[in-house]
């Protein structure tokens, strides 16, 4: 006869097996990996931040100063590479995410405030992505009250319900569509040689005898510094570091695979800057030449392109913007809730049921829908959102970079893989430069917000 105990024991074993069968599939892990299947994490992380805010800033700097801001792209590529490489190296050699390391080395309280800040800043970033959707769709003649909710629902479904195949295809498409900016730039018919020449600092090039006549030397004043700062501020964002390191860990990159990942980070940093180059060249050849120096938002840039470079160029510009916004909106909320939950010890992952990972789901869902809702509710004040998002990013970047530099130089964590002396010099100099420049952005944005609230952006 069966005794009650033996039946219960059997029942327990049975549920144990069901549990294991479910765990064995681990969709979230697969998903995180499949997000990275086609393109490496370095490429994704560099391209994703060419988002709505980024594109607007690039377009605006091209309109305002023409080719003469292009020289900043090379040092920016180096700074971007240096800061991202440190995180990927930490991920590969410690096997721990950046938020985990901060928690283990700096304690709960520091981690809590850092995570709270990241949550707030990334809500701002998500909002600026939906603002991008709103700009792009209105240029294509679709009301924002239709496009933004659809985008929010689509992003939510893609991540929670998407199968590997679909996510892979969609992400690949996202990466390819960035080329729309390359085409837009060609349609704008710039003088390519002159643009390429400006990749070298014009302040120096004007002393090269035969070059002098071609070089456009900007006046180095406060306005120009602000534009440079805005470029840097939108290019290097705090959340990238958390995302990249988590992705490297999830992808199980070890010391042996590390060289490949470093190449991926190099390719990512360069390809991102190539896109930036084309955006700036596009607006420099059209808006700047025609004397349209101030554009209040990216939508205006797209509209202004119409008579100058043709309908197609304008449409491609909007498509690029929509693409970038959706790409970032698919990755930001997920990676944010994942990083926050992991650091604070909450259950996370889309393979868990809602009841098992309430906080994770609540964060993820509210980042998307609160972000979308606020964008619709604020409507015409969308520019303000972008400004705030830049200010907050600027304030968060210094502590994050300093944490990264402290951790990457800890011999007990990294062993022989701590920064070399030369690398540390480059890293600290670019960190201090970035901190300085982002603080300039933050300062001027606050100035604009409170002193000239009606003047739009700068």
């Amino acid at each position: 006869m069966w005794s009650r105990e033996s039946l219960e024991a059997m029942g327990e074993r049975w549920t144990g097996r069901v549990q294991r069968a479910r765990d064995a599939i681990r969709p979230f892990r697969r998903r995180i990996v499949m997000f990275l299947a086609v393109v490496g994490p370095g490429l994704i992380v560099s391209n994703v931040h060419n988002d709505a805010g980024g594109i607007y800033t690039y377009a605006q700097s091209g309109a305002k100063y023409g080719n003469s801001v292009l020289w900043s792209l090379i040092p920016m590529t180096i700074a971007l590479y240096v800061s991202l490489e440190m995180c990927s190296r930490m991920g590969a050699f410690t096997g721990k995410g950046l938020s985990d390391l901060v928690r283990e080395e700096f304690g709960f309280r520091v981690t809590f405030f850092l995570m709270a800040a990241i949550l707030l800043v990334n809500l701002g970033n998500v909002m600026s992505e939906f603002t991008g959707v709103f700009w792009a769709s209105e240029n294509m003649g679709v009301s924002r009250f239709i496009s933004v909710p659809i985008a929010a629902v689509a992003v939510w479904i893609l991540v929670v319900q998407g199968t590997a195949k679909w996510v892979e295809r969609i992400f690949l498409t996202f990466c390819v569509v960035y080329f729309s900016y390359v085409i837009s730039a060609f349609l704008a018919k710039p003088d390519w040689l002159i643009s390429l020449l400006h990749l070298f600092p014009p302040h120096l090039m004007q002393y090269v005898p035969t070059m002098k006549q071609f070089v456009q030397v900007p006046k180095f004043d406060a306005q120009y510094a602000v534009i440079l700062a805005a470029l840097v501020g939108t290019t290097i964002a705090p959340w990238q570091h958390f995302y990249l390191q988590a992705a490297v860990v999830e992808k199980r990159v070890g010391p042996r695979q590390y060289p490949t990942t470093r190449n991926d980070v190099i390719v990512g940093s360069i390809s991102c800057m190539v896109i930036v180059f084309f955006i700036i060249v596009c607006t420099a050849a059209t808006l700047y030449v025609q004397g349209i120096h101030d554009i209040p938002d990216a939508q205006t840039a797209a509209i202004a392109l119409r008579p100058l470079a043709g309908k197609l160029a304008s449409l491609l510009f909007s498509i690029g913007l929509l693409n970038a916004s959706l790409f970032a909106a698919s990755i930001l909320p997920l990676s944010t809730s994942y990083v926050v939950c992991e650091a604070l010890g909450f259950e996370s992952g889309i393979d868990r049921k809602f009841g098992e990972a309430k906080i994770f789901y609540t964060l993820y869902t509210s980042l998307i829908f609160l972000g979308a809702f606020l964008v619709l509710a604020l409507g015409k004040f969308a520019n303000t959102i972008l400004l705030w998002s830049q200010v907050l990013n600027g304030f968060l970047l210094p502590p994050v970079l300093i944490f990264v530099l402290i951790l990457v130089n800890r011999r007990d964590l990294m062993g022989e893989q701590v920064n070399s002396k030369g690398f540390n010099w480059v890293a600290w100099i670019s960190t201090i430069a970035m901190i300085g420049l982002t603080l300039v952005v933050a300062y001027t944005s606050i100035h604009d917000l409170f002193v000239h609230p009606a003047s739009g952006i700068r």
Partner: protein
Amino acid sequence: MLTATELMGAKTYDAQGNYVGKVREFFVEPAEQPNRVAHFLLARGSFQPLVARHDQVAAIEAGKLELNVPERALDAYQPNEGWLAVTKDLLDQQIIDTSGRKVVRVNDLDLAEQRTNGNVELRITQVDVGLPGAARRLLQGIAPQRMIRALQNRLPARTIRWEFVNLVEPDPLRRLKLRITHEKLEDLHPADLADIIEDLSPAERQGIISSLDEETAAAVLAELDARLTTQIVEKLDPEKAADILEEMAPDAAADVLGGLSKETSEELLDEMPGQEANEVRELLEFDPATAGGMMNTDFVFVGDKSTRDEVLEWMKEQDLNLDQLDTIVLLDGGAQFSGSVPVARLLLAGSEQALNELKIEPLLSVQPNADDKDVFELFDKYNLRMLTVVDEDGRPLGVITVDDVVSKLLK
């Protein structure tokens, strides 16, 4: 009940009531008692820190510690590898919850006071991994004690009893000194243990795998993500790695070796006993995308003329892995494949019935160079649980089971 956070920073007074210092850290000495707080580190500003032993403590409350000895009876602090430091080694670190079978991060520790003659001892009762601990860590020293207590009583608790806590320590020497064993882990199902190991950092994974017995280690490695398995085996001591591979099924061992560099793989094969090594070598020859690359050379075969009773008698004597056995391969007089019999059919067969009469139709087998897609199709079409791989002469080389197909499809 006290918590580690409440005790941290407690003001300490000696037997005469003189102020000594603040509690900055406390230690468990697992070699003596697994859960007793054995030493309190007392910080005294710029003076050398002192250590109070468990039997020197007269009374403890949140924020206050009273000693039963004068200050001069205390020892100066000397770092000791055999002491488990609560703040440094436990708080905010990851531990393994062996009852819930997962990796969690420690927010706080719950301590119980135990009165013995003349002194008070603290014992760790459970680890707090939930919101109450988090709230306390956040607010301690900022908000009044009573408010924190009231708040944490409202929050849902998530705790793990100390007996179920398995510490993770990558350094083997320190592990020995702290008496950390992985016996509790060996009782877990290998698939659960594999999940736990995937959540840890590489150094911690290495520490756990190298301290498990070979059989468990082999079972866990077979369940792990292929890339992780490669990383772990690469870093193991070759002798240990060979011992673990020996315990694995030949096809699983071949999969692991296939991911390693040629030299490492050869080195490990040389360490393995001849017969096992040869089986694995043969398997390594096959392209992973073919039937040969998926098959397992460990299978049960009997002559097709033998009766059910003979087979059962024979099976009793063999050391077979019964959990995995569901089909028996039949050979004819020329050692050629003649069919296969599901074990379930043996249950209902007559005792003198020959296995020949029990085999399933149609008679299916593939050659080792068959494409893996063709294998999947056969499994799907005929609802197979096992398929025999035969050479050109029709002699069985190995079998592909449905779990080989599933893991191949999920890759």
